[in-house]
C-alpha cells in the first residue's frame, strides 16, 4: 500500500492542495467567506444542478443501452466478436472535439439524420447524453462484460432447472453476482460524465456548463483561483458523497464466487430470444458507435480531388518543413510511448492498491479506496495547474519533463485498474490459496499459480483500459506546458484549429490513424492468452 499511497500523495494530493491553498489563502490568512459567496451564486448553483443531473441521466442511459451489450459480449459467441469489442472501445480514445464534430455531422443541422429524417439533436441535452453513451459504452461492456464472462453459467441453469423463469433466474442469480462490477461501471461512467468538458462544449453550446467547464474558465481563462478553489472543493464533496454511497452499496454484495474461464461460458446464440438480443445490440452499436466513426473515416478520405489518400500524403510531406504539422509516425510513436509508460505506472500502482484493498479491511482501507477514485472526478485543469505550482522546485521540478504526461495520464488510469481488478480479486476464494499453502506452495508461488490465472484476464482488461485512457487523454496533458512531442489527440486538435480544407482533412486523417492504432493495440491485447484455471 506504500507505493500507491506515495504516488497518490505526491502526484495528486500535493498539487491539488497547493492550487486550492493558493486560492483560499490570501495575504497569509484563510479567506473562507468566498465559500459562502460562491455557493450562493445562483449561476453556480445552476451549473451544479446541471452537472449532477446530466451525469445521472447519462449513466442511466449508458447502463440501459450497454448492459445488453455486456451480455452479448460475455455469453454469446459470434464471428468478429474480438474486432467488435475493439471497435466499441475506439470512441473512448477519440478526442472529444473530433467525436463532437462527427456527432454534429450526424445529428446536427444539415447533418445526415437531418437530411434523411429531419431529426436534429444539436445544442440539445439529448446530443450530450447520446455522446456520453458513445464514449462510455465500452466502460460497461468491458467492466461488466469481463466479469460476466467468468461467472459460472451453471448457477443460472440450476435455477432454471429448479423452475425459475429466464428473467427470474437472471434477476435472482446473475444480477446479484454482477452487482459489484455493475456498481463499478456505473461509478466510472458517472465520474466521467460528471467531469465532462469537451462534449458539453461542442454539443451543449454556451447554454450548458458543467462544473468542469466553469473550473476551466475560472482557472485557465480568468485566473480567479479563489472561485476555482471553492468549485474544486465542491467537486470533491460531490464525488466523495458518491463514493460513500457506492462503497456502502457494494460492500455488502461482494462475495466469493466460482469463476470459470471466459472462453468456456460463451455459446452460439440459440433460440429467437438470444438472436433478437444479439441483433438489437448490433443495431445499437451500428447506429451509435460505428456510424459516427464512419463519418470521420469518410471525411479523411474525401480529398480535394475526390476520394483518395491526399490528406494522408499531405501529413507526410508538410511535416518536413515546419514545426506545426507533426509527422504521423512521430505522433504515433509519442502516443504509444506515453501510453505504454502510463499503462505501466497505472498497472503497478493500481495493482498494488487493489491487492492491498483485497487483503485488508477496515475503515482506513476503504477510505483509501475512495481516495484513489478522486482523480477521475477532479478537473484536469486543477491537476495540471497544481503540477505547475507544486512540482516546481528541485529535486522535483518536473514542470518541463516529458514524464509529467504519463504521470497525469496514469492518475486517470489507476481507478480503472482498481475497479476492474477488485471485484475479481475479492471473489477469489481464500480457501484456494490456503489449500495451496497447505500443499507447500510459497506465497509467491500460490499467488502465481492460483490468483494470477484467475486475475490474469481482469489484468488484461484493465491494461487495455489504462492504455486506451492514456491514448485518448487530452485534458491534463494540454494544461501542462510540455516539450514539443505532441501525441495524436494533441496533433488532431492543432490541425482542427486552422481554417482550410487541407487542415480539416488532415485532422480527420490523423483521427483515423488514432482509431486504427487504438483498435490494433486492443486486438493485440485480446490475443494474449492467459492460463486458464482448468489446467491444473
Amino acid at each position: 500500500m506504500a507505493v500507491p499511497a506515495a504516488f497518490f500523495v505526491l502526484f495528486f494530493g500535493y498539487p491539488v492542495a497547493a492550487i486550492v491553498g493558493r486560492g483560499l489563502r490570501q495575504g497569509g490568512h484563510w479567506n473562507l467567506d468566498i465559500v459562502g459567496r460562491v455557493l450562493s451564486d445562483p449561476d453556480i448553483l445552476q451549473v451544479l444542478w446541471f452537472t449532477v443531473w446530466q451525469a445521472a441521466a447519462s449513466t442511466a442511459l449508458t447502463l440501459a443501452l450497454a448492459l445488453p451489450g455486456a451480455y452479448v459480449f460475455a455469453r454469446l459467441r459470434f464471428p468478429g466478436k474480438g474486432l467488435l469489442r475493439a471497435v466499441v472501445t475506439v470512441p473512448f480514445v477519440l478526442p472529444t472535439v473530433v467525436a463532437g464534430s462527427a456527432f454534429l455531422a450526424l445529428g446536427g443541422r444539415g447533418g445526415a439524420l437531418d437530411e434523411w429524417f429531419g431529426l436534429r439533436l444539436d445544442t440539445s441535452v439529448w446530443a450530450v447524453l447520446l455522446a456520453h453513451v458513445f464514449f462510455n459504452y465500452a466502460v460497461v461492456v468491458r467492466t461488466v462484460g469481463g466479469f460476466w464472462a467468468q461467472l459460472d453459467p451453471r448457477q443460472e441453469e440450476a435455477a432454471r432447472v429448479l423452475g425459475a423463469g429466464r428473467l427470474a433466474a437472471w434477476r435472482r442469480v446473475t444480477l446479484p453476482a454482477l452487482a459489484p462490477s455493475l456498481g463499478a461501471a456505473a461509478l466510472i461512467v458517472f465520474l466521467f460524465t460528471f467531469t465532462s468538458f469537451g462534449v458539453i462544449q461542442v454539443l451543449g453550446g454556451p447554454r450548458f456548463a458543467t462544473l468542469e467547464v466553469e473550473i476551466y474558465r475560472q482557472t485557465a481563462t480568468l485566473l480567479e483561483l479563489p472561485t476555482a478553489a471553492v468549485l474544486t472543493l465542491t467537486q470533491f464533496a460531490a464525488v466523495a458523497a458518491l463514493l460513500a454511497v457506492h462503497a456502502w452499496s457494494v460492500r455488502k454484495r461482494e462475495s466469493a464466487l466460482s469463476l470459470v474461464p471466459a472462453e468456456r461460458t460463451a455459446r452460439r446464440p440459440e433460440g429467437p430470444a438470444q438472436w433478437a438480443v444479439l441483433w438489437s445490440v448490433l443495431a445499437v452499436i451500428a447506429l451509435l458507435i460505428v456510424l459516427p466513426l464512419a463519418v470521420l473515416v469518410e471525411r479523411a478520405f474525401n480529398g480535394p480531388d475526390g476520394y483518395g489518400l491526399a490528406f494522408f500524403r499531405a501529413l507526410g510531406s508538410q511535416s518536413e518543413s515546419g514545426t506545426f504539422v507533426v509527422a504521423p509516425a512521430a505522433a504515433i510513436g509519442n502516443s504509444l510511448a506515453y501510453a505504454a509508460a502510463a499503462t505501466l505506472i497505472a498497472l503497478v500502482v493500481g495493482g498494488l492498491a487493489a491487492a492491498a484493498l483485497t487483503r485488508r479491511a477496515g475503515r482506513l482501507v476503504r477510505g483509501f479506496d475512495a481516495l484513489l477514485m478522486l482523480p477521475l472526478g477532479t478537473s484536469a485543469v486543477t491537476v495540471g495547474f497544481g503540477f505547475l505550482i507544486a512540482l516546481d522546485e528541485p529535486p522535483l521540478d518536473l514542470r518541463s519533463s516529458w514524464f509529467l504526461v504519463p504521470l497525469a495520464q496514469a492518475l486517470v488510469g489507476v481507478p480503472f485498474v482498481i475497479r476492474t481488478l477488485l471485484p475479481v480479486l475479492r471473489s477469489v476464494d481464500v480457501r484456494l490459496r490456503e489449500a495451496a499453502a497447505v500443499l507447500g506452495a510459497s506465497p509467491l508461488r500460490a499467488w502465481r499459480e492460483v490468483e494470477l490465472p484467475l486475475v490474469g484476464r481482469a489484468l488484461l482488461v484493465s491494461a487495455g483500459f489504462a492504455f486506451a485512457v492514456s491514448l485518448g487523454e487530452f485534458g491534463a496533458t494540454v494544461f501542462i506546458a510540455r516539450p514539443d512531442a505532441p501525441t495524436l489527440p494533441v496533433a488532431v486538435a492543432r490541425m482542427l484549429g486552422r481554417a482550410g480544407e487541407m487542415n480539416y482533412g488532415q485532422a480527420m486523417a490523423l483521427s483515423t490513424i488514432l482509431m486504427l492504432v487504438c483498435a490494433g493495440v486492443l486486438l493485440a491485447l485480446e490475443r494474449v492468452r492467459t492460463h486458464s484455471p482448468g489446467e491444473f
Partner: protein
Amino acid sequence: MNKHAQRAAAATTAVLALALVATACGGSGGDGDPKTVTLVTHDSFAASKPVLKDFTERTGYKVKVLRGGDAGATVNQAVLNKGNPQGDVLFGVDNTLLSRPLEEGVFAPYEAKGLSAVPKGLQADPDKHRVTPVDTGDVCVNYDRKWFADKKLAPPRSLADLVKPRYKNLLVTQNAANSSPGLSFLLATVGTYGEKGWQGYWKKLRANGVEVVDSWEQAYNDRFSGSRGGKGKGDRPLVVSYASSPPVEVMGAKPEPEQAPTGIAKETCFRQTEYAGLLDGAKNTKGGKALLDFLLSKKFQEDLPLQMFVNPAREDAELPKLFTKYGETIDDPATVAPQKIAKNREQWIKTWTSLTVK
C-alpha cells in the same frame, strides 16, 4: 520471507525507482544547459525548421519549445510561475491578455534589436520594453462567396450591415467567455459603438438571429457554409474568424483559384497584437535576449505569415504571395486599450452572456 516483508520490500524498491526516474527526467530537462534556450508558448505557435536551424547556426542556441495550451492558459501559467519560470522567453500574449502579466511582473525589460522597424502604435510598453510586439492578426466576419453569389445578395461590409433584415439568421460567432475570436468580436463592437453603445448593438444582433457556439472550431468547421473548400455542412454563410482565413482556405489548392472561396467584411475587424517577453528569473537570460532579437529578425518575420497566418510586426517584412493575392489589408480596425480591457473584461462578458445566451 513472509508476505508482508516481501511486499514492503517490493514497495520500497518501486518507490525508489519511481523517484529516481522522476528526478532523472526532471534533471535532464535541459534548463541548466546554456546551449538551450526555452520558448514557452501556446498551441498555435509554428516556425519552419530551416529558420530555426539558422538561429542555432548563428547563435549556437537550440530552441526548446514548451507549449501550455491556449494563449490564455499559457499566460496564466506564466503568472503562477513568476520568478521561477519554466523557460526563458514567452511568446503569445496578446493585447486582450497583456495587462495581468505586466502588472504581476512576469517579464524583465529588454529592448530587442529591430524594434525601430515596428510601428510605434504596436509598442505596448514603449518606456520599459518588457514586451516586444511580434505579429498582428485581425479578427473579422468572413463570408461564403458562393452562397452570396447564388442568392444574388451583396455580402455585408460593416457591423451596421449585420443587423439589417437581409442578413437575418446568417451569422455565427463564438462564446466571448472562452473563445479568443469570440472575445475579439465583442471588443470590435465595444471599440466601434463605445462602452455605452455596444449592448444596444448586441440586442439588435440577437434579434437578427446571431447564433453563438462555444469554439472557433465548431463555428468555422461545422456551422459555416464556406469552410473545407465548400464541403462544410454548415448553413451559416457568415462567421467570425480571422482576416487570414481566406488565404488559408486556398493554401495547397491545385490549380490556384482566381480568388479565395471566402471573403472579409472589412469594417467588422478587431486587431490582436501578439507580444513576446523575457521571463523574469530566466535561467538563460543571454539566450533569451538572442531569441527575442530573432523573433523580430526579418527572417523570422517573413516566415511568420505562412506558419501562423498572422501579419509580421515589422513594416519592412515582405508578405508572401498567398497573402498579397488572396488576403485583405485592414486599414482601420477597432481597438480598445489593454488597460480598459483588463478592467472591464469580466463585466463585459457577464453582460454579453446575459444579452446573447440567456
